[in-house]
């Protein structure tokens, strides 16, 4: 892989209390590409995703050792605040989680807490809604409670909310798992668009989705990174038996 590494880990170990969740993970996620994390439930892919934007900081029983880097910055450097990191690394969650506010405020909130010039906020809200292909559907009802949108629209709103901050990386934790196939395809189109400006890391259980969408794929199993390569290699010519069994559906 000759690409620039946007995110990387080295000797990353993570424990929930005594439980060893991530075991010596070393991965380099290339810039402006879509990288899929796949693997059976409980393999640590979501946990790995959440180490990138320090969401584990909220829990006091999590212990992390090893290096996690964005560009040349150590994400866990005590001198760097989690807030700073999360501005650079946005996240979209498994279940759409719009705030209990109206559509406009859902996006404006992130801009406000990051001290965006108030005069620029309306324009940035519109821009990010356009980029998430939501603008035409909601432009006349920006004051409507976000919760009244359909599930797919809510998820696109959550993506718009992340995009509005112009992060460098967008993390996605099974963003389509709560959606119907039609909404999922819309989100996938959107993610493909995002690749032009962002580095995307997506956790997915859906093998077809990983193949359709991603440039690179990482297969994880029991907290270890088993194999990482281009999506083509992982699905067509896996080097490891575990990977082969998983991607061909012969697992367990």
């Amino acid at each position, binding site marked *: 892989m000759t690409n620039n590494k946007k995110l990387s880990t080295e000797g990353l170990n993570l424990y929930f209390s005594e439980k060893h969740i991530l075991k010596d993970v070393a991965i380099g996620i290339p810039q402006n590409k879509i990288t899929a994390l796949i693997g059976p439930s409980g393999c640590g892919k979501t946990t790995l995703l959440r180490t990138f934007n320090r*969401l584990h900081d*909220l829990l006091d029983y999590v212990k992390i050792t090893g290096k996690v880097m964005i560009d040349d910055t150590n994400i866990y450097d005590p001198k760097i605040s989690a*807030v700073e990191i999360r501005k650079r690394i*946005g996240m979209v*969650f498994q279940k759409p989680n719009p705030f*209990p506010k109206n559509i406009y405020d859902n996006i404006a909130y*992130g801009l406000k*807490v990051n001290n965006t010039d108030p005069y620029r906020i309306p324009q940035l809200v519109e821009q990010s809604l356009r980029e998430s292909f939501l603008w035409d559907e909601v432009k006349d009802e920006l004051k409507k*409670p*976000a919760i009244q949108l359909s599930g797919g629209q809510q998820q696109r709103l959550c993506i718009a909310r992340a995009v509005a901050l112009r992060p460098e990386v967008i993390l996605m934790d099974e963003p389509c798992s709560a959606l119907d196939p039609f909404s999922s395809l819309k989100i996938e189109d959107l993610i493909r668009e995002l690749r032009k400006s962002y580095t995307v890391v997506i956790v997915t259980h859906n093998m077809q989705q990983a193949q359709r969408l991603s440039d690179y794929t990482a297969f994880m199993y029991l907290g270890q990174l088993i194999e990482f390569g281009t999506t083509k290699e992982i699905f067509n010519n896996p080097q490891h038996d575990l990977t082969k069994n998983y991607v061909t559906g012969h697992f367990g």
Partner: protein
Amino acid sequence: MDFHQRQKTDNIFRKIFKIAGLLIIGILGGIFLMLMYNSIAFFLHFKPADFLTDTQWNPGNTSHAEFGILPLLVSTCLVTAGAMILAIPLGICTAAFLSEFASKRLQTILKPIIEMLAAIPSVAIGFLGIVIVGPGIAKLFGIQSGLNALNGSVLLAIMSLPTIITVAEDAIHAVPLSYREGSYALGANRWATLFKITLPAALPGLIAAIMLGMGRALGETMTVLMATGNVAAFPKGFLNSVKTITATIAIEMGEVPYQTTHYFALFAIAAVLFIITLAVNLLGESAINKVRKFQ
């Protein structure tokens, strides 16, 4: 048990639960009717307009008794408002601290203590007002007696705090973690997340907490009776002695001759108190519904 027997027990229990439910409605209706019946008897003797506009509550004056509710109503509102000004910020901040910032250990110590505060009898809180808070207020403001509205407000705030804290803490705790994670993931810090996401999301519960606390303060009798000086005159401020509606009823009901105008007058002011509490509840209810639309 065969089928018929089962159906029979089923029926019996259904009836028992139905009766229990109807009984509650019956009791509420009965209280309401009793208040209304006696209030109407009062208004046959005394003009409703005078009741609402007279500025004197002077039932003892045999030649010209006056039953103006205003001084009592203003007293009740003043003491309650004072209590809420103290208790709402304190209660909600404590609830937010308990739910969002306190360690597990501190939570397990603090929560039972706060709940224990609710178990202190109101008479004991009244003592506190006479012995400590009252003299303290007198000293602080350089006045003769500390038995005034401020004293009542402080004590009522103490009494409504456990209700407000407990209900508000539950409401804040019930806000889904996903809201908070969403906020943190956007680079918001703890304070922005608390004030702009978590508390607004918990608003229906917070309003309920405030309403319950306010209901407690409005209806509390023994503490205000002991601590506010019981002077049935228009208070000019928090440092004046006041006589609330509840204290008036409690003090005068025991001495009043049966079925006199004065006797009926006490029912009339009780009915007003009832209507106020009802209005507070309905207002709270409608505020909650307005907020729910966003959740």
